């Protein structure tokens, strides 16, 4: 800006102001208004109606199911994310690069395709479908399928945040602790974990936000059975299709508030996670 505005008066003097105004206007129209609109529509008929919609049995069940999925997937993502990062950062072995590519694969496959893959595997005519039916194991249109496909979609998040940090920090501290007689578990708890805690938190926040909000992948495997396998994002669609717009916006506003909280936490943690 300085380079453009300093010196003699030029015809392009107002360009920065124009560009700033354009950027703000566009962002308001494209991002801010939709965000405000969700909250406004959810509360447009008063708080009582809003509460009534949130407390409707099916919506309440969807909130419960979404919470359950988030609570189950979080520890799995943490444990496996750390294990994978430790493996890739601390050891060299044949196939290491291929494994890393495989870990990151879910980021390049769109969630809806992930859902299709799961159905082709566990579905009635799928690869494992007949065997599972025989053994009386239910994966699809039930909690296991929803959890597994959510894990597919969220699995790279923790590793992606923790791995670069582990690589940058090196293993000198861990080696030293081992030399001083610490056990492997002690090294992990006292040295590794404190070093990666912010990146771990950051990855966990991103993964959980995604687990709560995932729509495409879950919609394929859940069957969206009312009051049974409907997660909150699916409930938004169901209410919308029922023409219960206020109900849909009430459910959506819950997810919006979660998204805003995630955004604030993310901004607070981001700086610390990268160093």
């Amino acid at each position, binding site marked *: 800006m300085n380079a453009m505005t300093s010196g003699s008066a030029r015809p392009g003097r107002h360009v920065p102001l124009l560009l700033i105004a354009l950027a703000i206007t566009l962002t308001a129209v*494209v991002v801010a208004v939709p965000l405000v609109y969700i909250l406004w529509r959810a509360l447009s008929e008063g708080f009582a109606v809003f509460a009534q919609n949130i407390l409707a049995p099916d919506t309440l069940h969807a909130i419960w199911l979404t919470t359950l999925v988030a609570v189950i997937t979080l520890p799995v993502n943490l444990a496996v994310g750390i*294990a994978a990062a430790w493996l890739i950062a601390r050891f060299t072995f044949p196939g290491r690069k291929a494994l890393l590519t495989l870990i990151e694969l879910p980021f390049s496959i769109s969630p809806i395709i992930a859902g299709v*893959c799961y159905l082709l595997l566990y*579905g009635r005519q799928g690869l494992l479908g007949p065997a599972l039916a025989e053994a009386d194991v239910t994966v699809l249109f039930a909690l296991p399928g929803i959890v597994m496909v959510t894990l597919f979609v969220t699995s790279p998040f923790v590793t992606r945040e923790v791995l670069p940090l582990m690589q940058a920090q090196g*293993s000198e501290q861990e080696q030293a602790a081992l030399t001083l007689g610490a056990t492997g578990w002690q090294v992990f708890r006292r040295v590794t974990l404190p070093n990666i805690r912010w990146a771990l938190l950051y990855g966990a926040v991103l993964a959980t936000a995604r687990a709560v909000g995932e729509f495409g992948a879950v919609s394929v495997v859940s069957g969206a059975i009312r009051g049974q396998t409907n997660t909150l994002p699916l409930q938004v669609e169901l209410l919308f299709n029922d023409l219960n717009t206020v109900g849909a916006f009430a459910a959506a506003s819950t997810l919006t508030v979660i998204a805003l909280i995630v955004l604030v936490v993310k901004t607070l943690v981001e700086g610390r996670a990268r160093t």
Partner: protein
Amino acid sequence: MSVAAVATIPAGRRKRVLPGFGLTLGVTLTYVGIIVLLPVIALALKGAEIGPARFWDIVSAPRTLAALRLTILAAALATVFNAAYGLLMAWVLVRYRFPGRRLLDAMVDIPFALPTAVAGLALTALFSQNGWYGQVLAPAGISVVYTIWGVAVAMSFTSIPFVIRTVQPILEDLDRGQEEAALTLGASPFQVFTRVIFPAILPAYLVGITIAFARSLGEFGAVIFIAGNLPMKTEIASLLAVIRLEEYDYNGAAAIALTLVAIAMVLLVASNWMQARLTRRRVPA
């Protein structure tokens, strides 16, 4: 780094000093195998089972072709908007200081944070005939909901951050000396932008555009709210794959899904290639 550390240990002892190799390898392989690899293999096997002739029949069927055409066209429209808006935003956020800049920067992340179904619901209501935006556009004869424009709007919303977040760091690291030299030599600010700045950020810009396009092609949640999902008209390819599944036409679903994966992989390879060129060019500087 770990290689160097391991190499300093006397060869007589065990090769790997850090514990946990067996455990983490076992956990990672088992997990990735079950959660990621097995479902993807199921898709690949199903695709192989169909055979090329049948595969071609499915993909070239009018309804599939119409869905693919709509998906690609709408994603292209969305990407044109994101390319222009993304460059503007990256420029404004990096080069100018003004009140509210940090808030504007934070708002860029909202499309990623917001669940796609929520975005779809909000955009559909806003652009419907009696919505805030629809009311303005309807007299002009523009309808967005249930048209390709609606699909494009939903796609562009969910992929807004990509171009901005790839161009921003490159623009920040740019050496200002060249610009000042060009200005001193009598170039106009516009010339400085087109001749000095733009070529420097072009690789990152192209990477951002490619990722945004790929994400738009794969978008589902936001789109199905606003599209109306009319076969042959506003039905996206991934929805058609799901419809085929619901009809127990697993071959049809697998063929469409594989086509989409193939397009995504081509775009991924292209963006990796550009990224590799980008980093190679930045290292000597």
